[in-house]
């Protein structure tokens, strides 16, 4: 249950459901262990480059160097801030079919403590649900107190993985967070909405997707860059997670890509000669676009 409000700050809460792992943050903090935050991150082809399709013409080619999806850097930053404030650790969880780790190193260089990477040839072609299954299985092993994700990846844009992970783990799901506070009895999330924000209280563990732009991701420091390579990085296969190849990849995908076609070229736009009334046309155009 959540409540919408613009100015007043009213609390609502997400009911605690049957949790597969229950780690009371209060207990952890009493033992001075701090909070364990997992951040799901994705490595994508650099969006600054023109994308290419694989030979089959159905998926984005990922054979070049991959970088950390910028939209994930906000979750990483938020996790680092939470871990710095409350004490604790930040673990990255990422699916990397090709075994590429360059983008994950960037997040480690920002300050994350460790990474769990699932790499397996059978992962190629995984749809959003397949991805969520893999990440959920890895998260089940990692046992975090809090799971942060981006709201969506910059190359796939399905925006469904965070909620799917929560469902698979039977955890509360809070989406579009603009701020997250870890309290002694759970989370307080401000959730971005068109009308302002919702304030959602929620027990831990929980899956929270973080809106891009809500924090300023730090630049990796040079020392962080040098330290990244020696941070614990666990490489897992599907078998290591107890998953069958048939559940993921092309075979497990419930989505079929029928066709991929280029975006139609944009037209030349409207050129109007200014005969002294040009400003009227501009005003009319802005009104048509509903920006006035």
């Amino acid at each position, binding site marked *: 249950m959540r409540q919408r409000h613009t100015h007043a700050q009213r609390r609502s809460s997400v009911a605690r459901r049957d949790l597969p792992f229950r780690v009371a943050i209060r207990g952890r903090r009493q033992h001075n262990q701090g909070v364990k935050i997992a951040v799901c991150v994705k490595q994508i*082809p*650099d969006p*600054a*480059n023109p994308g290419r399709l694989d030979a089959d013409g159905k998926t984005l080619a990922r054979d*070049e*160097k991959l*970088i950390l999806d910028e939209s994930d850097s906000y979750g990483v930053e938020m996790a680092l801030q939470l871990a710095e404030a409350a004490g604790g650790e930040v673990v990255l969880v990422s699916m990397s079919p090709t075994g590429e780790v*360059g983008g994950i*190193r*960037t997040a480690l*260089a920002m300050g994350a403590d460790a990474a769990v990477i699932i790499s397996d040839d059978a992962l190629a072609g995984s749809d959003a649900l397949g991805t969520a299954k893999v990440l959920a299985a890895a998260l089940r092993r990692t046992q975090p107190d809090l799971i942060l994700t981006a709201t969506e990846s910059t190359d796939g844009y399905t925006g469904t993985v965070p909620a799917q992970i929560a469902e698979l783990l039977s955890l509360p799901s809070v989406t579009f967070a603009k701020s997250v506070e870890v309290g002694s009895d759970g989370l307080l999330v401000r959730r971005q909405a068109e009308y302002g924000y919702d304030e959602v209280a929620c027990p831990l563990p929980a899956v929270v997707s973080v809106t891009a732009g809500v924090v300023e991701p*730090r*630049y*990796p*420091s*040079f*020392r*962080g*860059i*040098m330290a*990244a*390579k020696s941070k614990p990085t666990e490489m897992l296969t599907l078998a290591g997670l107890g998953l069958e190849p048939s559940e993921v990849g092309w075979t497990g995908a419930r989505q079929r890509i029928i066709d991929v076609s280029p975006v139609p070229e944009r037209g030349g736009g409207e050129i109007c000669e200014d005969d002294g009334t040009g400003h009227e046309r501009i005003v009319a155009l802005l009104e048509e676009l509903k920006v006035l």
Partner: protein
Amino acid sequence: MNTEAQLSHAARSGATLSPSPHDFLGIDSLLSEEELLLRSTVRRYVEERILPHVADWYEQGTLPAREIASDLGRLGLLGMQLSGFGCADSSATAYGLACLELEAGDSGVRSFMSVQGALAMFPIWAYGSDEQRERWLAQMATGEAIGCFALTEPDSGSDPASMRTTARRDGSDWLLNGTKLWITNGSVADVAVVWAQSEDGVRGFLVPAGTPGFAASDIPRKLSLRASVTSELSLVNVRLPADAALPGVAGMRGPLSCLTEARFGIAFGAVGAARTCYETALQYSGERNQFGGPISRFQLTQQKLVEMMIGVQRGMLLALHLAKLKDAGRISPAQVSFGKLDNVRMALEAARSARSVLGANGITLDYPIMRHMNNLETVITYEGTHEIHTLVLGQALTKQSAFG
């Protein structure tokens, strides 16, 4: 602006038939994964935090020095080539790449890093007492404290041994008198490393800002390095305790060793300025239409682009080679002179050539060209003029000194 992935792609496809205009020789393949990540990080910092503002800073003749100091401190670039005291003990290549990317933004920002790390922190690290190191280095590495280096005087430039600033013993204290000119970061510095003639030859002194008799004023009306603080320092009976002197060095070797450190960074930095000019000209020439098509199709324009590209690539190979020598502990000051001389000359030629490709647009602050070109007129003069470096090399070849 090209991206890491493009560069990397270029590096991987270096052996194919179509080299990338941004890394024609596939030089990126010589860099480690850490070096590439450092480079892309500093490049992103420059694109996000420096480039949106630098034209305004330049026009107004200002630099937000405190902010830049704390940014560069957080990035871990200040004194990165030193060890201990929060410094990262980086390779010479990593240090050089940071200089390159900062100077691709503006020579003033790279100058800030050079002065802080190579000219102020280095002498404290190399020649300072434990107390001096403890007091200054850690906070200079974070950018909390800013340093400057005071060697040049109004009448003592290429011939620093002729300096008139003196340090006299007065009981156990020192009394400093003199004037220093063209001091980068002078008026914003928390500590000045002042070089002065003493009875034991030239000595270095740490002069904290605010010491009575010590004053800094900025040099107005500069037409170059405008996004950089350049000051005149005046020392009138500045009384310093005995422990203000750097105990580890006496003679011109002290300041000259600092300059060798800084010049090494310039050999890389100049490649950054040249790269920006080249890439700006390359892009502009493809978009600027005259006589019914892009000017990049003209032979004269292509020749300019090719010469610029060759200069940038050759300069990069030179800088990386010097870094290898430096890391191996086998670099000589004359070899650093080679790098500073040739790469700054190359960069200035690239800037002038790029300016001509951009025509009238090249003279505005809407494009980075004229800013770089004006900056490089300073860079070719400071830290050893082009002429002096030529004579250093001449002396190395002939064993005859043509100066002094």
